[in-house]
């Protein structure tokens, strides 16, 4: 039975596996992204993010399992016509001018945005007449963004969108994406910058070694790890005896300054006092998303 189109997920992976020869890049991934959701995919390099995006876009076929884009096969032109894509890896014709390339890409979509509006959205007014090869790295990223949005897509796929941008253009760019999100667009982005995910996404999917190890809001992921960062100064030379059996992770000791992550900082500190560790300049703060992320991937790595 066909259901109302708003119930159809924008993107859906069901038991998706992907193998490249002997490498199992994606393992039984189930993921449904609803229309209007803003989802950040996080994971270390080689975790399977790019493979997942490639499957969603129909650039690669799953070894087994199902992938749907707006309820259609991802290679279906009707599905593609509703998507805008910014792939970090892809090239772009070098000798066409910015305006020409955008004019060309607009012709691929049934209801494209006006050309001048696209140029304005990407902040490329001054470079509209320049050939692509003359653009700087950051300008090129903005061109990719313009190519992604020129068809007025319902769903945007952004693969590492701010790589190569300086802080200023990155901030402006993130604002633009946030505007698209508020306009009800579905956005799927991969990023290395965790604060980007924190700032933009309402949902974070953490992929590690081809498996989804967390799928929740940024706050929930931080809470799920519930890690606090504990740091203090000590004159005690810490030995294995001092630390044995304590619930800590990511321990770093440098010049008598100790930093660690723990879900139960009270227990850790109490034990350390009891074991005769002298503690000064104590600080306990909530971990940020990056630390949560490190803890999560490390936990998944543990046997």
């Amino acid at each position, binding site marked *: 039975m066909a259901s109302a189109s708003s119930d159809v997920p924008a993107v859906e992976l069901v038991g998706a596996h992907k193998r490249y020869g002997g490498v199992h890049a994606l393992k039984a991934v189930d993921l449904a992204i609803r229309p209007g959701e803003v989802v950040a995919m996080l994971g270390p390099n080689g975790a399977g993010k790019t493979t997942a995006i490639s499957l969603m876009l129909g650039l690669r076929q799953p070894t087994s399992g199902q992938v749907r884009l707006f309820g259609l096969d991802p290679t279906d032109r009707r599905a593609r016509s509703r998507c805008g894509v910014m*792939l970090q890896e*892809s090239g772009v*014709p070098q*000798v066409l001018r910015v305006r020409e390339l955008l004019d060309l890409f607009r*012709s691929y979509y049934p209801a494209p945005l006006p050309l001048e509006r696209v140029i304005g959205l990407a902040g490329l007014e001054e470079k509209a007449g320049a050939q692509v090869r003359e653009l700087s790295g950051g300008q090129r990223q903005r061109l990719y963004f313009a190519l992604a949005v020129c068809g007025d897509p319902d769903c945007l796929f952004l693969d590492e969108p701010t790589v190569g941008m300086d802080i200023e253009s990155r901030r402006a760019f993130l604002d633009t994406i946030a505007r698209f999100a508020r306009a009800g667009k579905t956005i799927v982005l991969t990023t290395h910058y965790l604060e980007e995910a924190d700032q933009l996404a309402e949902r974070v999917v953490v992929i590690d070694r081809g498996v989804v190890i967390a799928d929740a809001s940024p706050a929930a992921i931080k809470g799920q790890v519930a890690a606090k960062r504990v740091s203090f100064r000590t004159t005690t030379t810490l030995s294995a005896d001092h630390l044995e059996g304590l619930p800590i992770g990511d321990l770093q000791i440098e010049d008598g300054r100790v930093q660690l992550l723990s879900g139960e900082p009270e227990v850790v500190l109490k034990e350390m006092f009891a074991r005769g560790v002298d503690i000064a300049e104590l600080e306990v703060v909530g971990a940020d998303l990056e630390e949560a992320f490190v803890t999560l991937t490390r936990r998944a790595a543990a046997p």
Partner: protein
Amino acid sequence: MTTAAAATDRAATAPLVPMLVKQTWYGLLALWRIPAFTVSGLVLPVMFFAFFGLPNVGRTFQGINAGAYMLASFGAYAVGSMMVFNFGIGVAGDRAGKLDLLFRATPLPPLVYMASKLLVAALFALLSLLLLFGFGAAVGGIHMAASQWVQIIARLILGSVTFAALGFAIGYSVSSHAAPGVANLIYLPLSFASGLFVPLQSMPQFIQEIAPYLPTYHYGQLAWGAAGAAAEPLATSLAWLAGYTALFLTLAARGYYAEEQRKFG
């Protein structure tokens, strides 16, 4: 699911003809802006004809004006090289520059993409022939019936499919750094040994014996035949070209599928 999507189909996709027109127009523009291509594709054939052909205008060769004969030769050389280089270097370059990835992720149908590439090459080939023949007629004073000019152009452009296939075979088999060298290394000796630069009769004996097995020889026959100097029936030329096209397409397909598997499998 499919029916629901089909029901909301109202302009779910963009019309294909404007897409093809734009893709072709910008393909022409992009190619036009690469001097290496315009020089070798448009200027060189005219220059070669000026060097090799003009001195022979007025002599009789194979029963026709030797100037007209050599104009046909260089026409074949020009269109063939346009195809081999445009597709050989172009495809290898697109692969290296990850342009395939860019276009794949858009709603542009692969067939429209391919059709526009063929159209761009055919239009450039036409331009190249008009320049060359215009030069031959204006400067060399070579006269042929209008129907003959048209026939040469039509035969050369339709027959160039063989060399487009050769270009694809090169483009999908070698890297973008190797492609220009490989294309030259294959196409130039083929052209020379088939009598496209200087008539076969002035070539060494062993080359004259090899020539009838080369694709460029039979391609040249298409043009020479239209000018009134065929050395074999049209059907023979077409059969050879069809055979070579099949061979080149097989090679191209092998490279294409290997690439497909690696990048998009």
